[in-house]
């Protein structure tokens, strides 16, 4: 176990150094992460103002709160593994990772977490700036703030594991961008990125409850806004835990099958 801790520590250091080297690409990710929720914030605020100050149980200020918190939650849970994996397999760099005595997912998690540690202060600053511009309204209960810690952690795990499983598609096909795009469309609608899920038709809300997407983003956001009851929160944490377990087993199956058919060029 202490070996694994050493690995994480070393990966933190490596990622930190390379992040400082590639500041430009960091800024680009962040522009995308700020702009999209900002656009939807403005669109829904406009709708809310034009129909008299509230839509589907959200006031204009609550929309501002929803999308600013969503921006942070999306940033915290975000992973880029689906873009990277195809390259790794095509170029054969995965071979080096396979030689290591630990599962390659550990290096990916460490890489992800350490880059978040660097970008999070800046994101919080941006969120603060947006808060002064749009006057968001948040009313989380004290227990909701406590529950948000495991909810965020589980949300990150669910999203990371699901995307890691999907990234393995690169073992079978070279056209992963099409696979990725389908996933991102589902995520956009069913995680609550485009609008709070309560604004969607009932059937879509039910579907969202049974799929993993809501538990990656929408659930922690609603929790931090103070919109969930204690029961709903506990059910949500349970759903997240179930998805982590399901994905864990799925990952084992997919990874084992994928590695078996993997042949590096030049091997």
């Amino acid at each position: 176990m202490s070996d694994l801790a050493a690995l994480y520590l070393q990966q933190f250091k490596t990622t930190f150094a390379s992040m400082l080297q590639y500041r430009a690409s960091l800024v680009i990710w962040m522009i995308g992460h700020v702009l999209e929720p900002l656009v939807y914030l403005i669109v829904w605020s406009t709708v809310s103002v034009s129909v008299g100050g509230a839509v589907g149980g959200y006031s204009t200020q609550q929309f501002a709160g929803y999308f600013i918190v969503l921006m942070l939650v999306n940033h915290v849970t975000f992973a880029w593994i689906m873009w990277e994996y195809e390259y790794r397999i095509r170029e054969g760099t995965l071979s080096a990772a396979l030689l290591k005595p630990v599962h390659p997912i550990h290096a990916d998690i460490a890489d992800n977490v350490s880059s978040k540690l660097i970008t999070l202060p800046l994101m919080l600053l941006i969120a603060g700036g947006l808060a002064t511009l749009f006057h968001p309204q948040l009313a989380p209960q004290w227990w909701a703030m406590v529950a948000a810690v495991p909810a965020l952690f589980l949300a990150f795990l669910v999203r990371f594991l699901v995307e890691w499983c999907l990234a393995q598609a690169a073992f079978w096909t070279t056209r992963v961008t099409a696979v990725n795009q389908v996933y991102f469309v589902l995520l956009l609608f069913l995680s609550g990125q485009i609008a709070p899920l309560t604004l969607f038709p009932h059937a879509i809300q039910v579907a969202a409850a049974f799929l993993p997407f809501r538990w990656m983003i929408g659930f922690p956001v609603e929790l931090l806004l103070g919109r969930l009851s204690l029961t709903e929160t506990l059910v949500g944490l349970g759903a997240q835990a179930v998805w982590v377990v399901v994905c864990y087993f799925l990952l084992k199956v997919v990874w084992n099958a994928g590695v078996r058919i993997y042949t590096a060029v030049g091997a």
Partner: protein
Amino acid sequence: MSYLRMLGVFLRVSIMGEMAYRVNFFVQLFQSLLELGTAIAGLAVIFSYTDSLGGWRPDEVLALVGVYILVGGMIGFAIQPGMSLLIESVRDGMLDFTLVKPVDAQVMISVQQVEIWKLIDIVLGLAVLGVALARLGEHVGGGQAAAFVAMLLAGAVIIYSFWLVLATLSFWFVRVENILEIFNSMYQAGRWPISLYPGWLRFILSFIVPVAFAVTVPAEALTGRLTAGTLLGAVALAVVLFVGSRLFWLIGLRRYSGTSA
């Protein structure tokens, strides 16, 4: 005349090259349709709660989406591929081969590569625009149509000049592909009427990353929202940027030292 023939040759070579990867047609078609479906579903959610967004009716926003896809297709088809290749060839020195040819180097780099499957977006954008206009009925007159085409051209020139300036920066800095990514990331803001945004964001989207001139202004022309001031401003900006980017390109070119030299 010889330039036109050159354009034809490059186009033919691009098409011949891509014919080896015909499946890419279906991949691109699938992705474009998915993107369109996403945009329409998003609009459906929003317009189930309101019947106008910042003064734009649903069919007018649909027309805006059509322009957004059309212009995105034009950029992806004709502008972006050549500029990406320019940046690459400045880095690896392949620009040498372009410079020794007896034609203007700027024309050469601008037409040397096209991404033919992006034609799908152009067709799709026009189709969406057609549907939106049919639903809007007789609201579009000849004057508006003329203004639309003029603004589409002005927007294309503005975007082209903007990309040329960014790509020319590669004579000084090695890694500028990143800046181009910023453009792609900002472009998505053009899918909504720019009048919704607060002043500072409108300013960024008009003058720092000219998404507004490429998408919103033509759509405004089509829906009868265009003022004479914006029309003249867009034309003036197009001329200034075109000349400015040409001069900047010539200055940048002087810095180029090649590889084997």
